[in-house]
């Protein structure tokens, strides 16, 4: 699964957000992802791809930034 679909799945399953709302420009906060939900989403990402995120990572603000971060980390972790 690619990163944007992981985010779409998460939002649909957890917060009832329809996938069409999850565009790269969409702000995470407006989709209902507060700081706690962001931790939960990152946890799911780590789990899915067997990656461990650094605590010092900058917090993404939009879906696009989140995808970019996920893609970069997946590449770095081979």
């Amino acid at each position, binding site marked *: 699964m690619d990163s944007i679909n992981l985010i779409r799945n998460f939002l649909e399953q957890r917060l009832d957000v329809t996938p069409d709302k999850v565009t790269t420009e969409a702000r995470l906060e407006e989709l209902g992802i507060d700081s*706690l939900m962001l931790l939960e989403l990152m946890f799911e990402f780590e789990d899915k791809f067997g990656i461990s995120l650094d605590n010092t990572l900058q917090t993404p603000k939009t879906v696009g930034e989140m995808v970019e971060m996920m893609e970069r980390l997946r590449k770095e972790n081979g």
Partner: protein
Amino acid sequence: MVRHRVAITGLGLVSPYGGDLEDFFTRLAAGESAVRHLRTNDLPRPLSTPFVSCTAFDPEAVLGKPLASMMDRFAQLGMAAAFAAWDNAGLPRTADGESRNDWGVAWGTALGGTLASEKGYRELWQKGRERLSPLTVVMVMNNAANAHISLQLGLGGISMSYTVACASSAIAIGEAFRRVRSGEATVMVTGGSDAPQAYGSVRAWEALRVLAPGNEVTSPSACRPFSSNRSGLVMGEGGAALVLEDWEHALARGARIHGEIVGYGTSCDHTHLVRPEAAGQVRAIAASLTDGGLTPDDIDYVNAHGTATADGDPVEVAALVAVFGERAAKLPVSATKSMHGHLLGAAGAIEAITTVLTLREQCIPPTAHLAQLDPACAGVDHVIAARHGHPLRTALSSSFAFGGSNAVLAFRATP
């Protein structure tokens, strides 16, 4: 010191029968048990025990998916009950201009988010995972229910939880009552919730040898308080909430007043961790009467703690006889745990609601399955079928917890 009268303007629960508040009381009055046989698919050995489950409760439907997914089941039950009580009180969920900065929550729970914490242990120890969901802490914490209630209803006053075993929510209600009576709070949401069906919780209670046995056929009548063939308590999950409100504030907004809370008495047996002591209960009952400016002659009904354990029931009757003296023989008493089960941290709240409805409806619900009274429990007027036709002015609801903590609430009917 000025004492404000305290109105009960909201009642709400997640009914074990699946219906609304009126349906709940109708079924209690009819002596109908909500106890069923619970069989889980737990590893390594499934639970098999009489239990009260809120099977019709759909947290996502009632709370919405985002909110429900942030909560352990105990908080879901609590939030749903609080919403029901709030709607019942006719208060808007979003503040409409009036400050709610002295409105608060006092919530009882014996176990808190035990299901979430158990899920965490399973992940770690059964599935060999190394990490837990970041939501684990906020789901497990005992103050999760009251925190969510304050958030959802915009209540800026104190938000607190009470963990006092089986007296948790009676004490929460009593402490909330004091806050409104003293004028510190205008409105308090109070009550309790618990979900004790966690594998480890049930196994721990089984080890104490106080749980009644039962199968698919016998479970509905497994809890038989005061009966000569009683065999122990039946646990259940649930949530029950009351809105306590400054009397004048309630009148000013034209709220329906279900009843008045007038007294609260507490004590500790200080004799044994689990064996109750009549002397301690006597002090709590007497303190509730004094606090409410009442005498034994004023009391027309007692909703007993009555769990159906071998030791507990006779001690409770002995305490009532000690307080009520000659009148005890004519004092109507019933133990509704025979039908709604023992909800641990929600027990005091569901019984407080039952007591308020008893006064409002002028109908005493019975102790179910009491065909043969244990002579050791004789001395009060055991109600074994719904009773109407006698004026009911004031009533008590007793909660006597492991640890020796006792709490008794006194309620008055509104004319």
